[in-house]
């Protein structure tokens, strides 16, 4: 808005250059005169339409003259037009600022929604067993509350994507734990380990006996030995990998206890 209390030159100094109304009107009149002259003297204009061109020119000139008259008649006319321009400019600026703010807010909302969706997805993937991690993951998005500064969007997105990865890995660990359980039981048991070594050997011995007889068993003795050694080595390696101590042979029940009962 224009400050009416300030001097006109101060007002002008504080604003951008804008042509005065008078200059606009004069320019308008000159253009009108030039166009009329052009229309009148142009060869392409038929002589029959000259009165029409003359009438239009007169109308333009009358409009220009009336504007000049208005401008002269009311001294504050140009100021009013300037005010109008100022208002229009202010409104446009406000609209731009609002639009920009809306755009930033929308983008921020979109980003926040993306990050929250990823964290929520991670919570769903983690399952009931790891449900306690949901709050932990959501809290991580706030960064270090003591510093009072939120992590950047890229950092939060990275954290949220990492949470999804963590959820999948937790589920995979659970499944792997479940799958290893019978193997661990077998490796930790003396009888189970023996069974794991002798079962394949016994099965193959039976097959060889049924197909080739006792002679086949002798000819395939080296293969049977390799199978037994491989099974034994596999158990040893798995015990080391799973960090399971070699089980001790279970003590046999003494026969004296049985005899005392009798």
């Amino acid at each position, binding site marked *: 808005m224009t400050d009416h209390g300030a001097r006109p030159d101060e007002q002008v100094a504080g604003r951008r250059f804008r042509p005065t109304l008078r200059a606009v009107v004069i320019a308008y009149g000159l253009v009108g005169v030039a166009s009329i002259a052009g229309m009148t003297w142009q060869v392409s204009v038929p002589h029959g339409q000259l009165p029409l061109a003359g009438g239009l020119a007169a109308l333009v000139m009358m409009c220009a003259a009336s504007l000049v008259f208005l401008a002269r008649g009311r001294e504050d006319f140009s100021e009013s037009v300037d005010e109008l321009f100022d208002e229009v400019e202010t409104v446009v600026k406000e609209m731009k600022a609002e639009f920009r703010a809306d755009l930033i807010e929308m983008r921020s909302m979109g980003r926040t929604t993306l990050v929250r969706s990823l964290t929520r997805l991670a919570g769903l993937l983690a399952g009931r067993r790891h449900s306690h991690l949901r709050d932990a993951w959501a*809290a991580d998005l706030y960064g270090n509350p003591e510093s009072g500064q939120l992590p950047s969007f890229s950092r939060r997105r990275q954290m949220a994507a*990492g949470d999804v990865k963590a959820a999948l890995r937790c589920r995979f660990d659970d499944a792997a734990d479940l799958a290893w359980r019978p193997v661990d*039981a077998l490796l*930790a048991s003396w009888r189970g380990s023996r069974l794991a070594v002798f079962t394949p050997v016994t099965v193959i011995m039976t097959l060889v006996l049924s197909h080739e007889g006792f002679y086949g068993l002798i000819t395939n003795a080296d293969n049977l030995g390799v199978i037994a050694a491989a099974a034994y080595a596999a158990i040893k390696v798995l015990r080391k990998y799973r960090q399971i101590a070699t089980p001790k042979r279970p003590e046999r029940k003494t026969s004296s206890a049985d005899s005392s009962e009798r």
Partner: protein
Amino acid sequence: MAYPGAMASQQIRMTTPVRLVLGALAHADPDDPLWGYKLTELTGLGSGTIYPIMERLERRGYVSAKVETPPPAGRPPRRFYELTGTGRELAASAWKPRARAAATWSSRIAGQSGAS
């Protein structure tokens, strides 16, 4: 009754990320416990690596977790992690072989430089 392989579940594979996490937890101030975000900042590991390790350590009793109290306003409560007694032993043993190897190598290098 625990299944025969229960012993195996108490063990944890000592990888470099596990060592880093144990080191960070061992050096943490008891009055200022660590949580997931802080651990990622300290170790440089992603949350996709940190949380499975924390779950494994917690399940095996090396780490205890507690939810932030009182619940803060305007954000979810954090989950603080602390080493237990066995966890401290594990953290101490985690860096021993490396420290021994480093000492051996540094003594060798010092010996070589002294000889030359």
